[in-house]
């Protein structure tokens, strides 16, 4: 079973994402901000990370940049999932090493399509 880390400061979004991803056969861990996510990754690198942008303590972009610098940090497939939906933000995320990008609001179909896109399912 593939592991997916869901990083979002909203518990509602984490719950929705968990439900969708569990249906797609992922084992879910959660983190409320980038720092927590980094701690989780240092324990075990997940296969996939669904990543919010705006979060307290450490935001998604900062997390991603740190992650890609970690040992084994190139392994997880990172899918941003954020309300930041302009070209400049998307381009920055891709440059920082994001594999895909979901613009909120999202639904089951979009998550499924994007995860297929990057070969996770």
């Amino acid at each position: 079973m593939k592991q997916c880390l869901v990083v979002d400061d909203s518990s509602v979004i984490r719950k929705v994402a968990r439900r969708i991803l569990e249906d797609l056969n992922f084992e879910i861990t959660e983190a409320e901000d980038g720092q927590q996510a980094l701690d989780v990754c240092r324990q075990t690198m997940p296969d996939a990370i669904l990543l919010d942008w705006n979060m307290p303590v450490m935001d998604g972009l900062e997390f991603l940049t740190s992650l890609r610098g970690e040992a084994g940090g190139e392994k997880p497939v990172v899918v941003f999932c954020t309300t930041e939906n302009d070209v400049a933000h998307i381009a920055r995320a891709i440059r920082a090493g994001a594999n895909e990008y979901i613009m909120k609001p999202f639904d089951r179909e979009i998550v499924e399509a994007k995860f297929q896109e990057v070969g996770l399912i």
Partner: protein
Amino acid sequence: MTPTEFEFLKKFLKTRSGLVLSNDKQYLVESRLLPVARTAKLETLSALVQSLQRGGNRSMEENVVEAMTTNESFFFRDKTPFEHFKDTMLPHLLESRARTRAIKVWCAACSTGQEPYSLSIVLKEEAARVAGWRIRILGTDLSNEVLDKAKAGIYSQFEVQRGLPIQLLLKYFEQKGDVWQINPGLRAMVEWRKLNLLESFSHLGEFDIVFCRNVLIYFDQPTKTEILDRLAKSLPEDGYLVLGAAETVVGLTEAFKPVPGKRGLFQKKQVANTTTRPVPARMVAGAGLTR
């Protein structure tokens, strides 16, 4: 809506569009036709049916057909057909049409345009291979409404997130407020025409590839056979027909044979050159974005 009224609608739609409506589709009729009734300032579906029965309201008749036949579409739907296009059909045609350096592709029932635009994206991505070639993509549909949308090439945030890799969105679309518009260069690669597949399409001439996906499922068996046989006349011996993932020609016509190992792909005559070329790591629809 009374059973008699539903029967009338079934016959009306069958005659006008070939759409075969089963008896369990009453809810679909109601949800799709109530807005049409309201547009026509009619209170109920019964009033709409009565108006259709009286006849003479051409635009409302067209609206009814459009509302019942419009289908959801997404970019790179089912992925495989676009891989076949890039890795099987294009290599073969680039070789066999080297003299004319021209290829014609027809997307029959193109709906809101995602399929022809997905093909134009593949061609842009393969620009080096097709440099100097005249590749024409024609998109047809029986609905004016979807054709207008296809022509404009404007899609909602939801639509551009189904099937379109983010890299291709950034590369080929321009963000305009809440929506995304496909670049003028790609729009210029596709021509659009209104066409009902029940009517003759011989005037469109011959094509090298016809995409006719998830359309035949709405027709009854004799209509399917009749359309497939006419499609065969629009294709040369080595042309390609692409059907939907769940569709086949088996039991419907002898005019086409499945291309072995290529789901959804059909030819009139098996040509020798259908060898599989090694698929490059970067797949058409970005399956290779994984690092």
